[in-house]
């Protein structure tokens, strides 16, 4: 892939090692698909979804080994089936889960792993599973993420309005069962590819945290979308940069998660300040 080589060369300004430049590109491309998917997931109260899919990919992996499928293909297929199944269950038994649950969960694990990752002996298989490793992203994975971006662009262009409508006002979008399953499959694909590239924990955090941050700040639906994308890009790149600093030297994934959470906390504080009860001058 000659295009990528040129791109990496150009990014030499930011980082010396090639794996860091690759991570930059991977995170950038991932943010494009994942932030909008996160906005939709949060709007539709499916913040738990990527987590569920992410953690279940271990089972997909095992199944793949049993049947003799390529592990990446197996986890993707298994994730798609699970995604559709979650939609099915949500429609039958009114399952619901809170955004905060996903955030507290990912935040707690991230903090633990960030501490563990500083100790080279303690970090091992555990960290690799939860965090994946954005620093070992291959060109092949970057190509897969690029394909995901194209699918995401199609979904955002063609179905965004209807997906938001059925989230805000289900009575107005009744009978569009097809959309629910389409979204289930899309979100599953986003989650699985993100997990493969950067690990279960980072994938969830990239999906949910920027959307939650944007939700705290935005007033319009348009701002919601673009702010989520901005926070996703900034938290990804800034977190990567911080993790690389000699004084920090922590796991890139965990640092990115924590950077995103700092933005979320700041945004929530700002919102509290903005919405504080104000004295109105009586006239």
């Amino acid at each position, binding site marked *: 892939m000659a295009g990528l080589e040129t791109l990496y060369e150009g990014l030499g300004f930011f980082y010396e090692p090639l794996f860091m430049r690759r991570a930059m590109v991977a995170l950038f491309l991932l943010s494009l698909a994942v932030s*909008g998917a996160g906005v939709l997931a949060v*709007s539709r*109260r499916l913040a738990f979804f990527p987590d569920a899919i992410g953690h279940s990919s271990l089972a997909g992996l095992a199944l793949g080994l049993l049947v003799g499928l390529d592990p990446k293909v197996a986890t993707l297929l298994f994730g798609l089936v699970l995604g559709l199944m979650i939609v099915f269950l949500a429609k039958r038994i009114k399952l619901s889960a809170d955004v905060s649950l996903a955030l507290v969960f990912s935040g707690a694990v991230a903090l633990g792993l960030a501490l563990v990752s500083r100790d080279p002996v303690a970090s091992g298989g555990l960290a690799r599973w939860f965090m994946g490793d954005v620093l070992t992203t291959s060109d092949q994975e970057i190509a897969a993420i690029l394909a995901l971006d194209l699918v995401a662009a199609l979904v*955002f*262009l063609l179905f*965004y*309005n*209807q997906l*938001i*409508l059925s*989230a*805000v*006002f289900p*009575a*107005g*979008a*009744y*009978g569009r069962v097809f959309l629910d399953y389409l979204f289930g499959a899309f979100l599953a694909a986003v989650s699985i590819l993100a997990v493969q590239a950067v690990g279960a924990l980072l994938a969830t955090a990239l999906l949910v945290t920027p959307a939650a941050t*944007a*939700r705290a700040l*935005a*007033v*319009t*639906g*348009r*701002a*919601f*979308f*673009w702010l989520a994308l901005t926070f996703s890009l900034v938290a990804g790149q800034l977190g990567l940069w911080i993790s690389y600093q000699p004084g920090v030297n922590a796991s890139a994934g965990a640092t990115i998660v924590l950077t995103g959470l700092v933005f979320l906390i700041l945004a929530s504080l700002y919102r509290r300040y903005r919405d504080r009860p104000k004295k109105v001058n009586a006239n």
Partner: protein
Amino acid sequence: MSESPPAAVKFQEVGTTLGEYEVLRAVTALVPKGRQTVIIGPNGAGKSTLIHCLLGQIPYLGRVVFDPPKPKVGYVPQRPDFDRFLPLSAREFLALSLARRPIWLGLAKGARTKIKATLAKVAAEDLAGKPLGSLSGGETQRILLAAALLKEPDLLILDEPATGVDVYGERLLCELLEGFKDSFTVLMVSHDLATAKAHGDWVICLNRRVVAEGEPEAIFRPEILAATFGLHQGLLFNSAAKD
């Protein structure tokens, strides 16, 4: 009762249960085409449930027949629960079902103009830029009504349009309903007899089954209201029905 008018909707032996509880029993009634029908009945009579059957939102026995067979339906529910924290302006909400262009790209000029005109119809132009979650009950209903009107419906369904509406909104609602006459079929649910009397030109009395249906003159009689709402209420209506 004279010959039945041509129907936009026919309920044929519609029944449904909630667990063991029979909410509706063999409801057979019609909604005349191009006119304003009011379903009246006490709380728990199954009025909203009948609407949910019509919309296909819950499973039911019997049949609901439409003319035209697949009408464009505008539906304004009684108490919509919005996620109040979801960032979305009223204008964007209306664009969701109107425009193909995704809202994150902003609204096209045509959609913006059309939304503005429709909001003006429901006296809600000043709400366009407000977040959906910040609207009052009456304001929300006006936005939902605008959304229903944007669909250019064959059939407009209003579930308890007079509840949770301020006096200003109520007068507006009356004017709007007058304006809708002869443009499309309206089906309204109400436990408020004044609204039914003022706007209905066809009335269905429902109390888990159809007690009576017909022109208002035939319906607003003490014995029928008593049968619909219960005896004591019926005595009260005795004087109300005269004026």
